[in-house]
């Protein structure tokens, strides 16, 4: 006699076989009573985080005030398109207008983050300032995500003071918050994709590529020579190039699959930790710092409103893209 097959939850069996991609792309959320309870809690956290975001924005604008005198005396830039109008006004007046817009927009949004008009002015200020600051020959990317998140936050629903928001309003708010998370992780995934695509291209040409064992040493050496600078760990890693291999592979994994993690709240904190460590490593090796990105990761992922307090590390491991299959969920729960 054949032994009877082990009992299996039929829904789970159908779910896994019929949607093999779902495991990779993230599960479909269930609309149940706990989900709606979670919505209220998540909404409370998200509103607080948006306030924190605008408080940080105000800090950036205030910290810049120490440089205002120098900035007002700068030469005419080669303006990027958002500040092309600078060529038609007296330069000092134009720069002053940008700085005041940045400061007042940041202040207004920090005081009234629930009002859309303040978020629009805050975005305009950041957008103009970042465009102006990058109009002197090279575009730096440390404030790009901050600017894009600021643009998305404009679409948060207006909340009236003293009134509790409806379920639909809460959901809209959370959806825009999620869009900010998705934008942040999309940029990392594009960066990871770039490394993989260029590695394949360089491999086809017979060149050293990102998956080569010495790749990180070459990248570090070139970067340090470009600016004749010294990083804390870069010179050591050039001498011990094999150590860089797993580090670079790990960084590519973290970056490439970053976008998938926005669909898996159990990974939000884990991935944010990984990416912040990646930025710390980039600074120690390459002197490339992205503190604003670390702040965004801390706000939107380390403190993610979608992270459930009952998650444990086994769930997190089971949700890892590609590697999650090594940690089956049935053992995890």
């Amino acid at each position, binding site marked *: 006699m054949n032994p009877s097959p082990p009992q299996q939850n039929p829904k789970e069996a159908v779910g896994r076989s019929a949607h093999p991609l779902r495991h990779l792309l993230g599960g479909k959320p269930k609309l149940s009573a706990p989900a709606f309870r979670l919505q209220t809690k998540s909404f409370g956290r998200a509103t607080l985080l948006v306030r924190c975001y605008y408080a940080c924005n105000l800090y950036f604008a205030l910290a810049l005030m120490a440089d205002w005198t*120098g900035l007002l*005396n*700068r*030469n005419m830039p*080669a303006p*990027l*398109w*958002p500040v092309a109008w600078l060529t038609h006004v007296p330069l000092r007046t134009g720069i002053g207008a940008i700085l005041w817009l940045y400061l007042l927009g940041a202040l207004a949004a920090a005081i009234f983050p629930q009002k859309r008009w303040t978020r629009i002015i805050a975005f305009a200020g950041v*957008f103009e300032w*970042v*465009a102006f600051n*990058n109009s*002197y*020959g*090279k*575009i730096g*990317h440390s404030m*790009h995500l901050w*600017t*894009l998140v600021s643009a998305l936050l404009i*679409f948060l629903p207006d909340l009236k003071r003293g009134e509790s928001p409806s379920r*639909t309003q809460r*959901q*809209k708010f959370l*959806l*825009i918050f*999620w*869009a900010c998370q*998705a*934008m942040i992780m*999309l940029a*990392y995934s*594009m*960066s990871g994709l*770039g*490394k993989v*695509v*260029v*590695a394949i291209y*360089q491999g086809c040409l017979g*060149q*050293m*590529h*990102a998956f080569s064992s*010495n*790749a990180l*040493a*070459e*990248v570090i*050496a*070139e*970067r*340090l*020579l*470009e*600016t*004749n600078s010294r990083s804390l760990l870069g010179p050591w890693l*050039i001498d011990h*190039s094999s150590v860089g291999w797993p580090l670079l592979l790990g960084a590519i994994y973290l970056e490439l699959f970053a976008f998938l993690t926005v669909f898996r709240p159990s990974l939000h904190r884990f991935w944010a930790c990984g990416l912040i460590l990646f930025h710390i490593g980039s600074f120690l090796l*390459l002197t490339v710092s992205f503190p604003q990105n670390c702040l965004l990761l801390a706000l939107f992922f380390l403190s993610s409103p979608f992270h459930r307090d009952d998650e444990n590390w086994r769930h997190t491991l089971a949700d890892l893209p590609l590697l999650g299959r090594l940690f089956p969920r049935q053992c995890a729960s």
Partner: protein
Amino acid sequence: MRAYRRIRIFISWFLSAYFAMGLLMLLRPDMEIFPVFSWFLFARVPQSGAQFGLLLHQVNSRKIEPPRLYQEAGDLVPTAHSVTVYKLAQELGAAIEKNSPETTRCRDLLEKDWLPPQSSYELVKLNSDPVTRWKTGKYEIIQRLGTFTNADKPSGKNE
């Protein structure tokens, strides 16, 4: 609920458009139209090969003997470690080789904002392997593209 659906569609559209436009930016030499960027950062592993460098001959009317690369002249220029100057040198070199009008823009930015007044510099093409150059300090000048001066331009203001 209709508004909620509209937001969902808008978000999908926004993210897809950013992704697609970001990849399209690869067709541009500077790889971006602010704030849309490909995010292909440190994607290429550097090989042995040519790159451009600024060889300083004169700074603040003072002759430099022997001439030194900009990034190695930390005692003469305040922004020796600036990655912007390195990028501008690469852009200027490429523009001169192609005889492109970008040459004027790159020179203007470099000479007004990043070089001290009364400076003279030579744009050179260097050949080296990054790790070997890092360890030995040796590089080879394979081509000299021209010597320029900013004697008649205002001084730099970038710190």
